[in-house]
């Protein structure tokens, strides 16, 4: 039953040289509150060190529409909650060497998954029918993505190479993980940095 969930994929080559010698880094925002990205921005001056070694090729803070090809490392915030997340997650897996579950929602489902004990229709009724406005369905209007019956953590949909727990993960955890990935090392945390919540 041994498995190496904390290690990047063995066939992955994180330090593979892109054209300008920099790591191609992406960050993605799925079913989460963006708190993990806020914590990422809290890296403050370490962001300068990070972007000396990496190019940000896709991110909610970079406004790019398409997830690009040949990404070295992708940090995914948030759980898989709707059909758009499923589609994007599969693209991310195909186009990234290393995929990292970034924060508790991606790792466990966390707060996003609190709705799992409710039927999706009941959920929409609670939020929309009983509130103002009309109910978006998503099945036919191509505007709102349809909700999945159940929110799932990222690794239940695609293979994940490393996990950064925390709600949100503090900057020490993020830096520990990111600097290991930049150096082509597996992500390893001390027990106190592995706490959920």
């Amino acid at each position, binding site marked *: 039953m041994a498995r190496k969930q904390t290690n990047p994929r063995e066939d992955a080559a994180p330090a593979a040289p892109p054209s300008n010698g920099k790591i191609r880094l992406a960050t993605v925002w799925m079913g989460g509150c963006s708190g993990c990205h806020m914590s990422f921005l809290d890296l403050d001056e370490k962001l300068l060190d990070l972007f000396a070694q990496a190019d940000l090729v896709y991110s909610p803070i970079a406004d790019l529409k398409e997830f690009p090809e040949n990404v070295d490392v992708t940090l995914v915030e948030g759980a898989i909650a709707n059909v758009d997340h499923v589609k994007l997650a599969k693209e991310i897996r195909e186009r990234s060497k290393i995929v990292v579950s970034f924060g508790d929602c991606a790792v*466990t489902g966390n*707060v996003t*998954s609190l709705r799992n*004990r409710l039927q999706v229709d009941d959920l929409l009724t609670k939020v929309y029918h009983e509130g103002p406005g009309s109910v978006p369905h998503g099945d036919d209007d191509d505007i709102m993505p349809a909700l999945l019956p*159940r929110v799932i953590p990222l690794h239940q949909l695609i293979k994940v190479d490393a996990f950064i727990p925390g709600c949100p993960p503090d900057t020490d955890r993020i830096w520990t993980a990111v600097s290991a990935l930049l150096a082509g090392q597996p992500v390893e945390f001390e*027990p106190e940095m592995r*706490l959920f*919540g």
Partner: protein
Amino acid sequence: MPVVTLTVNDELVSGQSGQSLLSLLKELGIEMPTLCHLEGLSDRGGCRLCMVELQGSKRLFAACVTPVQEGMVVYTHTERLNNYRRMILELLFAERNHVCAVCVQNGHCELQTQAAKNGMDSVRYDYLVPDLPMDASHERYVLDHNRCILCTRCVRVCDEIEGAHVWDLMGRGVNSRVIAGLNQPWGDSDSCTKCGKCVQVCPTGALTLRGSTVAEMEKQHDFLKWILTGREKKQWDYS
């Protein structure tokens, strides 16, 4: 008590006959993960985290309910054991709704700590997401079945220390529930003395003080040692 000699992780050690293997391992300074065990309460071997390998047997033994024996050869942290411990913790997380980020005991929870210590970085099983109730009928405390791991510390402390036996278990397997009285709202229990011992020994956010919010709940176990020293040795330390 006669002394027995045994081998723990390839070192010769001695223990007292009749002593549990877990208590010896603790004396030796070997850190053993536990959840259902609590110093001062009877042991039940329920959580299985303290399992050890004994040479000559394929099955694993819960150290808390295994007495030390002459010539025993014990291994406490083999890869097999570490894998099983992680698996147990993942199954506990998958069985009920342990959402640490919004739990009253976030940061002070024994389940959360054991998961981190034993290398659990994710849960590989499907979450069962059971629809479980809370019992907020008691004037002082709250029971949240979503966080309960069925360790039965509450059952044992109420029976063995307080002598009220308000708590017990109902059902089997994943359908087991801790119940007050004959499965009645806790607040309606005539036998509950409102002492709060169950709340203080609960390792997770299943039993909490009424009104506590996220990450506010911390538990104190000191009272158990104080009561037991007083009862057994007639030494009541009021300092």
